[in-house]
């Protein structure tokens, strides 16, 4: 008896001691990234809208139109070969490249492209507005987007929009080309294969989505039917690792090749590690405060201006965001047509006090600010609270979950909202449409742009925004957006502070990863491991 238990104990001990250490390198043909995957709620391009999944779509589907991530003004056809704009500017005729195929082996034809666009409009999921803003509705879309040949189709809009606006919207993931035949094989009750595609795949991109286990792993494999240059990687895997410190350990140990969500502290700690490289890309997301004009103090123009002088922009960028963002004060991010990159505001307590006195508030006032209780938001809010107090504006911070804050914001129940806004596509209209448009300031308004959420009636600006949307001369259009930004910057209820930079930490042997201006431009297609 004793003998046997000793034997078992010895066996267990030897087994545990022999358990392999985790120093194994990741396989050479596989890229493994640590990422927070809880943003993925669908894999159907007609529905995908969040940052992380749009990167997945960007690497696995193809859009009609693309642009050079290094210079977004260089627009070119991907699935489309060429296009012409009609005299009246309302119709764009596209020609599709021939001889290309989906991962399934089905050929890519005009049928598929028309199907994909019509499908997105009819399904009417979150990103559908990117297409419907051109006058498409579920009822009329089949008459507006029509096939004219096996490899050609017409896009008929309700107005003569700036062609660049239309083209940029067609680079968005909502316009990705879906394999009609494959999707329709899985159609149930006229859902265009949505039930199936939300966890499935029907694209033609360099990678195929093989498996998605929520909050666990997402696996992509090389698409052997891809028409472009074949990727060197056979497999690309995202692992859900929610904690920054854990991502860092995995990266340092070589158990992942790339860590995507490192905190500024963890990134700083990796700077001296020769095995790790950091790649950065300026993203379009802006950190801003929204001042609700229903609050009588915030509604005073002098108060709005004063508060813009009560933020220590540079200090927050340097000490809290540490390379995760840079100071930016206009509503168009740097890199966009017409973007204003001047930063006229900096911490100036004396000037702010003067303005507050002029507003009849020499002793300042107290106001609530709703803040997301995660990541860098709390730290930034506290820094803002400190400098605001110097001018007499006492902020009462209300921490909350991001979805809770958003619910409150959209109901206009906040005083000050502190959060982020990212553009939906690379055309300036995307942000002008929300920061500088509010045609109905009533509580029942159908549309809830940021100007509405802050109860800021922007009648004149709305007209200018609408006009800029139609301007076909690029230089004139740029000037119009510059004008709009300056007006919002001077008088608007927004304190725009920073533009986000995405930092990606990679093992030094990983080459060819691209950090693009938008998340669907982030690409591992050209990645090799040396």
């Amino acid at each position, binding site marked *: 008896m004793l003998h046997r238990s000793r034997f078992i104990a010895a066996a267990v001990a030897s*087994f*545990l001691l*022999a*358990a*392999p*250490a*985790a*120093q*194994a390198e*990741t*396989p050479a043909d*596989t890229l*493994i990234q*640590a990422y927070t995957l*809880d943003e993925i*709620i*669908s894999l159907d391009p007609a529905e995908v*809208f*969040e940052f992380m999944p749009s990167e997945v779509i960007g690497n696995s589907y193809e859009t009609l139109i693309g642009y050079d991530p290094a210079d977004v003004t260089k627009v070119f056809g991907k699935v489309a070969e060429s296009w012409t704009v009609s005299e009246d500017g309302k119709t764009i005729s596209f020609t599709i490249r021939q001889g290309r195929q989906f991962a399934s082996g089905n050929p890519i034809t005009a049928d598929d492209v028309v199907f994909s666009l019509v499908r997105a409009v009819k399904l*009417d*999921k*979150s*990103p*559908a*507005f990117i297409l*419907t803003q051109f006058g498409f509705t579920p009822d009329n879309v089949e008459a507006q987007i029509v096939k004219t040949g096996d490899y050609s189709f017409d896009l008929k809009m309700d107005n003569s929009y700036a062609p660049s606006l239309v083209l940029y919207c067609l680079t968005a993931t909502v316009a990705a080309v879906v394999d009609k035949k494959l999707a329709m094989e899985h159609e149930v009750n006229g859902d265009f294969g949505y039930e199936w595609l*939300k*966890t499935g795949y029907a694209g033609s991109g360099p990678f195929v989505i093989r498996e998605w*286990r*929520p*909050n*666990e*792993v997402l696996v992509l494999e090389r698409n052997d039917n891809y028409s472009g240059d074949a990727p060197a990687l056979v497999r690309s*895997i995202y*692992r*859900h*690792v*929610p*904690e920054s*410190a*854990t991502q860092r*350990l*995995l990266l*340092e*140990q070589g*158990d992942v090749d790339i860590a995507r969500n490192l905190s500024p502290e963890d990134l700083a700690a990796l700077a001296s590690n020769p095995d790790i490289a950091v790649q950065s890309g300026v993203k379009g997301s802006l950190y801003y405060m929204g001042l609700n004009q229903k609050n009588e103090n915030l509604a005073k123009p002098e108060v709005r201006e004063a508060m813009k002088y009560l933020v220590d922009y540079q200090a927050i960028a340097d000490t809290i965001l540490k390379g995760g963002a840079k100071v930016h004060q206009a509503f168009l991010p740097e890199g966009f047509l017409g973007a204003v990159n001047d930063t006229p505001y900096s911490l100036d307590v004396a000037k702010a006090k003067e303005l507050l006195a002029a507003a009849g508030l020499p002793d300042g006032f107290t106001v609530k600010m709703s803040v997301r209780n995660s990541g860098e938001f709390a730290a930034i809010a506290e820094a803002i609270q400190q400098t605001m107090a110097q001018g007499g504006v006492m902020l009462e911070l209300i921490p909350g*979950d991001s*979805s*809770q804050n*958003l*619910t*409150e914001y*959209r109901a206009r129940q906040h005083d000050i909202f502190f959060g982020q806004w990212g553009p*939906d596509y690379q055309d300036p209209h995307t942000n002008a449409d929300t920061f500088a448009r509010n045609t109905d300031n009533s509580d029942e308004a*159908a*549309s*809830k742009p940021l100007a509405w959420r802050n109860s800021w009636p922007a009648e004149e600006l709305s007209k200018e925004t609408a006009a800029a949307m139609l301007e076909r001369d690029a230089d004139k259009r740029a000037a119009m957006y510059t004008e709009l930004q300056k007006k919002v910057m001077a008088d608007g209820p927004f304190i725009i502070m920073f533009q986000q930079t995405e930092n990606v930490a990679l093992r030094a042997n990983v080459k060819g990863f691209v950090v693009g201006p938008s998340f669907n431009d982030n690409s591992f297609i050209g990645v090799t491991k040396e």
Partner: protein
Amino acid sequence: MTLSSETPEGRGSALPAFLWKAAKIAASVALTLLGLLLVTFLIGRVVPVDPVLSVVGDRASKSTYDRVFLELGLDKPLWQQFWIYLKNVLSGDLGESFLTKRPIAEDLIRVFPATLELATVGLLIGTVLGIPLGVLAAVKQGKLADQVVRVIGLVGYSAPIFWLGLLGLLVFYARLGWVAGPGRVDITYEYDFTVKTGIMLWDTATQGRWEAFRNVVSHLILPAMLLGYFSMAYISRMTRSFMLQELAQEYITAARVKGVPEGRVIWVHALKNAAVPLVTVVALFYANLLEGSVLTETVFAWPGLGMYLTNSLQNADMNAVLGGTLLIGLCFVGLNLFSDLLYSLLDPRVRRRR
């Protein structure tokens, strides 16, 4: 032949009595679960989070928003929403999660085994270490050994699990390389075996994938030790106090006077009696672990129930929250029944009373 149950009279009433008891248990279980669902449902609807926003996001047009609002049935009165949900649950449909776009049942089947495996191994470690330590502390009350056990327990009680987890990873994974890192299995072994039960120890062992099995153990050992340490801290304290009670009883003095060896007095006489309340303590602690430890799962990138529920709750994915709550409720009820059963096995008085 004098046992009462052997009389015709006793035999006649035995079956209905048993049925009556089973029905009583079933009714109380059903009522408990119903109450649990109702409270969770109401809390979910009171939380100031708009579930539609979690589905359509911030940018969707009004038509999209309105459509989803109707799809989720949010236009109906609360009681009606609950009634519909209840009817679906009774017909075996837990609904669909709008975060994962899958049936809740499928989600739970995927995430629960991860938590079950971790919690079970953790509890085993905690019990195997905690009970002897508790006995030791009780026997050596006030002496050095007692103090040491108390300090170990105190650290287990008060140190944040998040911090201990990271420290553990830093030392045993990053520095020493003794264990594998966060996650359940290395990517290399990920497709080496078929996930059948989701209990990876079982899946790898039954398929004879011993390399993968070792890798799974290597991943599991650190978080399990961590949970084990926490259970040990609790179990050892409870054992100590139960043992002190028993050791002060007269039957112990009587046994000692009779000359029963001290080892037998402690491990057989006292512990056997202390075991009765201890079973409940351990069972309830196990149920606690099965809820999933969000922080442990976060640090160790462990795709379990805790992480799933937290994520669902934050996004007001109420179907998922309700489904998870139901599962946890079942665990609690099941373990309670199990400990009752063990009670009657361990304690002849309880057995007879029944």
